[in-house]
């Protein structure tokens, strides 16, 4: 029996034929050969349930998943927006029906009660005026399974003659807890509203949010942006009351077909200007997020929520930012003055470029032309290693030196530069650098060496021309000095 394929869900037609969950597929087929069976796909169902949960955020921000086939909505203080509890229940049922879902709904003063009502009762809403004892009695006729306990425990209880919740509620608590577990009593208390049983929502409720509902769905970007501006106005009013600014804002678009699109933007400082918030979204949408909207069959609810709000009062970091901005402005002024006096070509910034020849590895641009592009920053091949790979100073014209080496193409033992003889105490190389052949045909290859002389001065030498291939008498040059 264990490995049989079983029914995990039945629709209303199948129920009418007497099929129920748990029946093996072979038995069901035997009874009704025309049965249409589809393989269960728990992953897809879970995903669908999450989407439905998201779409329920239009009713309340506090939406939680409940098992593999349920949603729990905390609608405290929300129902009046939909014309009371009955209006809310009807609205939800109608919306889901339009999408092809049949719902079993329950609405009660606590989550466990609502759960029991949805699954085991005929009325969906606890009638008005039912609280305390009458409210508890409402559940006494229900089977113990309405507590949401495991089937094995329910079977145990049935063997002990406890079939309905009322049977449990009338009996002393201690023996029941001892025999069936403390969980049963906890659930009973939750059902009676004696213990608080909170739901764990998928998203934390935002502190501030503004929304607009549309009688007829909108699909046009212009209408969307106009509404966004109004929402931003509303949000700013809410924020101002608390003297806060928005750091992180989310725009949720609820589509008619139940889909929800969320677009989030962050701000560097707390924003409390509606136009600034709207502009952030406008830029975000212009920057390729357009397809994120995809109005589909239209949007019938837009909500703008402030996920992170911060006090507007100037903070330490804001002072620091102001200080830095002031410093940058001062620097710009200074560079302008110096450029005006000495000439723009004398006041420069440098950027690394991707070039092999050392004399071309950097470009200088006048500093007045504004900030340097960060283009060269990615070129971190020179960045700090054990010892620097490039000299601090580079001669515009490499200076010829006389060298003495053990073998013709070996590193020098000593060299003479500017009439001073240097004994090489340490040397590293060669680092072979060739000019790009497509530009300088026939330019000799350079083999660079980092050499340190006996007194600790460090030099960048190179030998021009590959020995034996490009030249028979290699020339040596000193190209730069290290610190």
């Amino acid at each position, binding site marked *: 029996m264990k490995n049989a394929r079983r029914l995990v869900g039945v629709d209303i037609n199948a129920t009418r034929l007497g099929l129920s969950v748990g029946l093996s597929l072979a038995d069901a087929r035997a009874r009704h050969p025309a049965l249409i069976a589809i393989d269960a796909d728990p992953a897809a169902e879970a995903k669908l349930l999450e989407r439905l949960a998201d779409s329920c955020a239009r009713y309340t921000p506090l939406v939680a998943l409940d098992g593999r086939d349920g949603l729990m909505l905390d609608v405290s203080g929300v129902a009046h927006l939909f014309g009371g509890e009955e209006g809310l229940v009807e609205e939800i049922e109608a919306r889901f029906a339009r999408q092809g879902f049949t719902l079993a709904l329950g609405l009660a003063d606590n989550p466990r009660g609502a759960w029991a009502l949805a699954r085991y009762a005929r009325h969906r809403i606890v009638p008005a005026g039912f609280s305390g004892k009458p409210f508890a009695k409402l559940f006494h006729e229900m089977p113990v399974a309405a507590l949401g306990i495991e089937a094995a425990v329910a079977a145990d209880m049935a063997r002990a003659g406890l079939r309905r919740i009322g049977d449990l509620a009338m009996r002393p608590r201690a023996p029941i807890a001892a025999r069936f577990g403390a969980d049963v009593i906890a659930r009973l208390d939750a059902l009676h509203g004696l213990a608080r049983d909170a739901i764990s929502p998928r998203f934390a409720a935002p502190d501030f949010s503004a929304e607009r509902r549309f009688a007829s769905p909108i699909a046009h970007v212009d209408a969307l942006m106009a509404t966004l501006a109004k929402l931003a106005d509303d949000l700013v009013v809410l924020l101002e009351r608390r003297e806060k600014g928005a750091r992180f804002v989310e725009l949720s678009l609820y589509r008619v077909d139940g889909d929800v699109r969320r677009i989030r933007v962050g701000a560097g400082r707390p924003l409390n200007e509606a136009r600034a918030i709207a502009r952030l979204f406008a830029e975000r949408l212009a920057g390729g997020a357009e397809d994120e909207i995809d109005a589909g069959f239209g949007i019938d609810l837009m909500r703008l929520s402030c996920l992170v709000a911060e006090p507007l009062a100037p903070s330490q970091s804001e002072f620091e930012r102001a200080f830095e901005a002031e410093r940058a402005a001062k620097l710009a002024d200074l560079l302008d003055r110096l450029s005006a006096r*000495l000439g723009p070509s004398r006041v420069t910034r440098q950027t*690394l470029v991707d070039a092999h020849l050392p004399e071309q590895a950097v470009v200088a641009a006048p500093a007045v032309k504004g900030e340097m592009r960060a283009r060269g920053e990615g070129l971190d091949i020179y960045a700090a290693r054990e010892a620097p790979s490039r000299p601090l100073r580079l001669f515009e014209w490499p200076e010829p030196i006389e060298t003495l080496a053990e073998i013709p193409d070996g590193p020098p033992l000593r060299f003479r530069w500017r009439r001073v003889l240097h004994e090489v105490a340490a040397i590293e190389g060669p680092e072979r650098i060739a000019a790009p052949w497509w530009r300088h045909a026939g330019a000799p290859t350079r083999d660079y060496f980092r050499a340190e002389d006996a007194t600790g001065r460090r030099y960048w030498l190179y030998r021009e021309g590959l020995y034996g291939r490009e030249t028979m008498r290699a020339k040596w040059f000193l190209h730069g000095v290290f610190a």
Partner: protein
Amino acid sequence: MAHLRRAVEEIEARSGLAETRASSRLSLTRALDRMLGGGLAGDALHEITPATPSDGAAAMGFALGLAARFMKERSAAGLILAEDFAARDMGALHGPGLVAHGLELSRLVFVRAPDARSLFQAMEEALKSGAPAVVVGEVWRLKSYDLAVSRRLNLAARTGGAPALLVQASAYGAADRISSAAETRFEIAAAPSAHGASASGGRGLPGRPAFAARLVKSRLGSGQGPPVGLDTARTIRLTWRSEDKQFDEPAISLSLVAASGDGPRAARASH
């Protein structure tokens, strides 16, 4: 001279100049900090001279190390000003080399001045603006550099709250003879680095930048005569760790050869 200096310091003390000093000192190494009175003042003029003609790059390397530290500490731009002639004789500062030395190229602004006079002017203006974290100047012709100019630079540094590092490339070996209003003066020589082992087993590989620094002058701010513990003959060996922007004092054993070569000046003079 000493009498005059004391008189000036008394006047400064009375006018409250000495008290208003911001105490933003940059900690270098333990030995140097003790001699500098807790670190290098972040709002004064410091002079750096090479010990010999071929130590120009070492002097600049030391100054740029200090500059990198100031820029990191204050996260602001640095200005490097150079007299045209210096670049012609010693080679121009090389961007990749600066990066390898631990400087942020995007935060550096390079200024070339046609002569020493305009260099000092530009330095003074840059210091006064309070915008850069550090101003490094490289001067070749020192004829126009006198007590008045150094005093102006020192005051500008104090006004803007930024240090001025003046590298006097042509003043090799003259560190003891210069008279200026600078807060400190260093004489820098290149020192043999800690050689890395070579794969072939031959000569080693050149290591991190190494310097032999001599603190020739230190005013210590308060101006109570030469500070206790300032031994102008003492050579301090430093290596520059560019990735952490940090000077190290290597263990003595690393530099036995050169240490005996430089020796304490007093010992050499007694021969």
